[in-house]
């Protein structure tokens, strides 16, 4: 009997050891600068491909790949083709941490691009030792101002304007356009929402009510209770929805079923105000008509815009079957920034060189946004402004009041000033030639 037990233990231990050895031998050898050969640059993205967050952001990797394919077909970056490795993190911190670690250690990527989320990416950054390994962490899709902390996130460059900037700009807009109206804020109870709440405070907007909810716990019933509660406020109160698209949709649908859509003036933040996703989530087009939203991009349906026109062409050719919307525009824009960053780092590409190139030349990169980029040796935060618009029934965002007014600001107490930024024209055929 003891013999059997011993045998069993022995066989389990040996099985584990054997398996371990098998995996070790399969491990690729590390090059001096990982993810880089004379013919290829390997980039990685950890983002949700499945789950609720994938509804809005699942299109980003496909759009980026399409743009990289376009660049590769036109000679790549100094002869090197870009390969994008995509890993699904389902918008869960554990998966973001392991998938980002996999990208760095297993896939051996040269740099990370366009990771999504605050709760997810802040954990992934530490777990994958990105700071210690000096892995460039480019154009993270979050407006959390904490990523601007250079000591904690030395290799990170965010792309979106901070949520605090957005809240400040919305505050001024509400005070200017809806004076005397009661204002209710409904925000997500995490770094994203809190960043926003601080921005509304900095913008000294008087709030009649403030509701903070955890993103994962908003349900149909809670949304209805919330809307019913808000409807007790007399007049036509302004409701600011500062959360993800799925929750924005839940609240709007609750208002639909309670026949209370027209009771309020709705303002949706840039994260939750994506009309295509709202429509896809079942919000009626009549509800969407009139919603006020903030944006820093041209509208993806504006076919007169040169960036929209070029990106749509690339999308049709390399990303067939996927409709062109704000998310695709955002993905392609990040990909174009990446190509410019790689070019700016020169032919002798290194990780340190890439980071330095964005710090020194990033503010001059061509981009689809109507606001400037703010990269410098002291700032890793991307865009710094917004314009306010109003959605129509087709989901197009048109400038509020008919005139486009772009404003810029900072994340703290700086003033909100009209932007004098003149957008750089899109390079010919959408292929950057900068150096």
């Amino acid at each position: 009997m003891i013999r059997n037990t011993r045998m069993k233990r022995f066989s389990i231990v040996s099985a584990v050891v054997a398996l371990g050895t098998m995996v070790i031998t399969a491990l690729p050898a590390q090059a001096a600068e990982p993810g880089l050969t004379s013919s290829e640059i390997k980039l990685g993205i950890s983002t949700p491909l499945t789950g609720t967050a994938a509804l809005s952001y699942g299109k980003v990797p496909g759009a980026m790949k399409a743009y990289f394919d376009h660049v590769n077909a036109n000679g790549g970056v100094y002869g090197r083709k870009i390969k994008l490795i995509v890993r699904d993190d389902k918008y869960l911190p554990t998966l973001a941490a392991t998938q980002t670690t996999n990208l760095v250690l297993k896939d051996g990527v040269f740099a990370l691009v366009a990771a999504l989320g605050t709760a997810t990416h802040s954990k992934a950054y530490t777990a994958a030792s990105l700071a210690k390994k000096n892995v460039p962490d480019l154009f993270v899709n979050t407006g959390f101002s904490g990523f601007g902390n250079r000591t904690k996130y030395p290799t990170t460059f965010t792309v979106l304007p901070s949520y605090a900037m957005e809240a400040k700009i919305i505050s001024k807009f509400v005070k200017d356009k809806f004076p005397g109206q009661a204002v209710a804020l409904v925000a997500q109870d995490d770094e994203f929402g809190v960043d926003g709440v601080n921005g509304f405070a900095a913008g000294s907007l008087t709030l009649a009510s403030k509701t903070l909810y955890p993103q994962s716990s908003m349900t149909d019933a809670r949304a209805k209770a919330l809307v019913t509660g808000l409807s007790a406020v007399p007049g036509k109160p302004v409701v600011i929805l500062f959360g993800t698209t799925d929750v924005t949709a839940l609240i709007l649908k609750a208002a639909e079923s309670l026949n209370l859509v027209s009771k309020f003036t709705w303002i949706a933040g840039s994260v939750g105000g994506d009309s295509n996703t709202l429509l896809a989530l079942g919000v009626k087009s009549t509800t969407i008509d009139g919603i006020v939203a903030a944006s820093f991009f041209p509208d993806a349906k504006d076919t007169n815009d040169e960036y929209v026109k070029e990106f749509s062409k690339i999308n049709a050719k390399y990303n067939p079957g996927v409709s062109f919307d704000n998310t695709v525009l955002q993905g392609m824009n990040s990909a174009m920034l990446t190509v410019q960053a790689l070019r700016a780092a020169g032919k002798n590409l290194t990780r340190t060189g890439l980071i330095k190139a964005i710090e020194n030349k990033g503010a001059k990169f061509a981009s689809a946004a109507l606001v400037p980029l703010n990269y410098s040796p002291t700032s890793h935060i991307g865009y710094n402004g917004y314009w306010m618009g109003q959605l129509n029934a087709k989901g197009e965002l048109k400038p509020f009041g008919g005139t486009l007014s772009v404003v810029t600001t900072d994340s703290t107490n700086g003033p909100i000033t009209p932007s004098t930024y003149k957008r750089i024209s899109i390079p010919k055929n959408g292929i950057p030639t900068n150096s």
Partner: protein
Amino acid sequence: MIKLSPTKKRTLFFVALGWALLLIGDRIGELLQYQGSFVAMYALAIASIILLTGYSGQLSLGHSALMAVGAYAGALSINNLNLHPAIALVIATFVAGIFGLILGFGVARLSGPYLAGTTLALAVSLPTLANQFPILGGEQGVVFDVGAPPARFGEDFSMYKWFFWISTLAVLIMLWLISNVVSSRYGRTFRAIRDNETAAALSGLNTGRLKVLAFAISSGMAGLAGGLLVMLISGVSPSAFPLSLSFSLLTGAVVTGVYSLKGVMLGGLVLVAIPEIADSIVTRIGGSEGFTATLPGFLVSALLILAVLFTPNGPGTLLHSFKKHN
């Protein structure tokens, strides 16, 4: 030939295993060290389920919630009390254990599907509850930082090796303790209750108290596993403990063989290896990202069905019957 008592043999086995893992940890790359830490953490979480289900006959579908309790306790003691990470892990174990004890008293009268239902409700509601208290950090959660490895290990000593050391050491100590418990009087009484509660009660065992004890020990183990999990992902937040984690652990326990602690490492290995296998399948045969994303879930489910069909008591029994036939 020196005759050793079973307890000493067990101790020697764990020391030898620890020594072997130390040597292996030195020779593998950072990725394997990181994955190895996950294997150890999952092995402990699976062991906690095996102790509860296989040994004391209670079914829990809410172990992810118990892991979350330990994880938050550990993270808060590092962040708010500035305690050493090792002490934080001990606190994670004890807080989850005490939580399990209180919960155990609450659900002592429940068994079978009722107990499963109650623990399931816990797994669904507890992470949401974490959003209600500002000290728990909302969706963003709390940072769990064990800090850089001690300088005396040298420059080359990576964070992943440090993780590997902490996880394997913590798990080996815990499993050694538990393997002693299950081969003691308590282990026998747990099994007696599992096999026939009425008969156990007639033999003079306080079945209610013993069940609560098993629940508390199991919770403590889950709490430590939770602490280790959030150490590996450098922070705790509600979404780190989805319901699917409870089910994955249960799958791991069934694949391992729910009546024996011996194969827990296999269970941990399976949970870590499946996404890797799925990955290499997709790389080989090609396929969309959606395919890669859903394949691990499919493989886990398939493995669960196959395990239930062919080795309901774990792969160890197959080996046993194979030997008998020969």
